[in-house]
């Protein structure tokens, strides 16, 4: 009786340990699942170009000021936008230029992460071309000018007349390109 009990207890323990291990792996599996989920549903879509809605139109009666901001964090680059702000009509295609310079004697790769104000601007901002879609690799003392092309949809709430688009460059660990795959 006792012997049989011990055997079935140990079998039970093994099953539960395997289950525990599966759940530990499941915790890690949530990471690619989360990324895939965000990609499929279009939430948090930082690296893919957007598609403009077919019924887009230009609201000639309205002006929006776009302030352009550029920062670096933890990497020795000069990063600036060539205009500080642009005035546009919602719905029209806008082209702005940014410039990065590597002041050091080594090759550095960086990734830009966008940030918007107000936060819900993201829903109305359609980007077709951006240096933030891929990592940027700069040779020593190289300078590069990069365009961003986008449309702010006319659906942006009427009380908003100024928005800010900000980019921050982060250094990627040597050769690694986790963000751009």
């Amino acid at each position, binding site marked *: 009786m006792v012997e049989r*009990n011990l055997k*079935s*207890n140990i079998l*039970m*323990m093994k099953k*539960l*340990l395997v*289950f*525990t*291990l599966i*759940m*530990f*792996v*499941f*915790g*890690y599996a*949530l*990471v690619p699942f*989360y*990324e895939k989920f*965000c990609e499929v*549903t279009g*939430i*948090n879509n930082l690296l893919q170009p957007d598609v403009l809605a077919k019924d887009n139109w230009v609201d000639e009666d309205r002006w929006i000021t776009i302030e352009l901001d550029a920062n670096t*964090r*933890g990497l020795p680059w000069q990063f600036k936008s060539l205009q500080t702000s642009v005035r546009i009509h919602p719905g029209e295609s806008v082209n702005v230029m940014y410039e990065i310079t590597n002041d050091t004697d080594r090759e550095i790769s960086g*990734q830009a*992460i966008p940030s918007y104000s107000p*936060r819900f601007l993201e829903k109305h901002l359609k980007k077709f071309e951006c240096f933030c879609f891929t990592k940027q690799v700069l040779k020593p003392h190289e300078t590069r000018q990069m365009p961003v092309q986008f449309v702010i949809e006319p659906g942006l709430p009427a009380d908003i007349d100024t928005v800010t688009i900000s980019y*921050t460059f*982060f*250094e*990627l*660990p040597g050769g690694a390109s*986790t*963000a*751009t795959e």
Partner: protein
Amino acid sequence: MAAVHGDAHGHDDHHPSGIMRWVTTTNHKDIGSMYLWFSFTMFLIGGFLAMGIRAELYQPGIQILEPELFNQFTTLHGLIMVFGAIMPAFVGFANWQVPLMIGAPDMAFARMNNWSFWLLPVAGSLLVGSFFVPGGAAAGGWTFYPPLSTQGGLGVDLMIFAIHILGASSIMGSINIITTILNMRAPGMTLMKMPMFVWTWLITAYLLVLVMPVLAGVVTMLLTDRHFGTSFFNAAGGGDPVMFQHIFWFFGHPEVYIMILPAFGIVSEIIPTFSRKPLFGYSSMVYATASIAILSCVVWAHHMFTAGMPAVGQLFFMYATMLIAVPTAVKVFNWTATMWRGSMTFETPMLFAIGFIFLFVIGGFSGVICAIVPIDIQVQDTYYVIAHFHYVLVSGALFSLFAGAYYWMPKWTGNMYNETLGKWHFWLSMFFFNLTFFVQHFLGLAGMPRRIPDYNLQFADFNMISSIGAFGFGLTQLLFLYIMISCIRGGEKAADKPWDGATTLEWTHLPCPAPYHSFEKPPIVK
């Protein structure tokens, strides 16, 4: 009563004496007692931190704790109370009661049981010790969201290791409990004849093995983000800090049910005993517990309504959360129906159990209010949320622990506790608890944010009331300590069945105190 003494035949308790008895013990009763003492110690430490928080908030302005230290106090108060006090206390109850209530001689894996306990003091000292390392303890809140937790100092690493160890301990404990319950029940005790406390623990233990490994995973990711160059939660490296919140709350929401389901079990034992009626709707209780456990796994994002989520997601998590109110209401209904026309008496365990129902319902309702997305966006991170979860954790989980301790003390020690002092303990706890936390609803609705050591003058009066209540509540718990110690040391001898409405095996088949080795020959359950 002949049956009562059937198992009490004299054993030689051939265990080492002194400290080595406790270090080497594999006896479920010894280990249960150690769990309870450990959790009470942690409860006092966590309580000391709470007193510090309330002392700082007694008046507006910074008087006692600098903001950095205040943040460490709130963080460690949460971590210690959740992982150090409430959870081990319930495991302590499980260790003592599960074998006694199902007629098993001991836990399934006695040596592993010893190990799961002795991991706890290690983790506890890591947490407490983190106050004394450079940079101090973790200060980013008990939920340790990045980026604060990826940036903090050595204290955060100690916290991560403590959580790893506590997780390992919990998982081993749960494996032990599941195996004991499924494999070692007395002949005749079918699953649907098990006492409710055993049922709730079986389901809780499954929840633990389900989500504790996920917590272990998420803190491991945090650790590798901090020290090994990964970027799980670092936006610059392609990670996402919001993903941490999703994974954390995938653990965190079942965790709150891990802390309340055994409480439901304790209350479901006590209410029938003192109403002298069987539990109303036993099988619906079992199904309600199971459905709460299942639903608890699909509601996690209600903690993140303001973190950015599509409206569809908010709606799903809102309705799923509100759905949990249904099985919970079934339970409250059943407890009330058990008392209906019962011949009730109001000894201390019953008082705490009724206080539990009364106050837990308040906490449950404020939970439904917080589930409503537009309201949650207003009250998130305010004192309203603090009030809500202290109503379910203090007057919920903690009150049930008090109720259970008074209820089973005669079985554990063979002595009756002091009923008069017990009643004082209840009424003082009841009064001071509400004084502390009821006013926090008003503070939250008025917009006072949590985790801030200073506040606007308009909040001054309610904060002073709340702090006075907190000091009173804290002091009252020393009375509990006194009552327990004097009960262990002596007091009126308990009859073998001091509660005449009790029907479970530990009361019907064992004397008081329960012998060191019990049910070596399993009882037959009809």
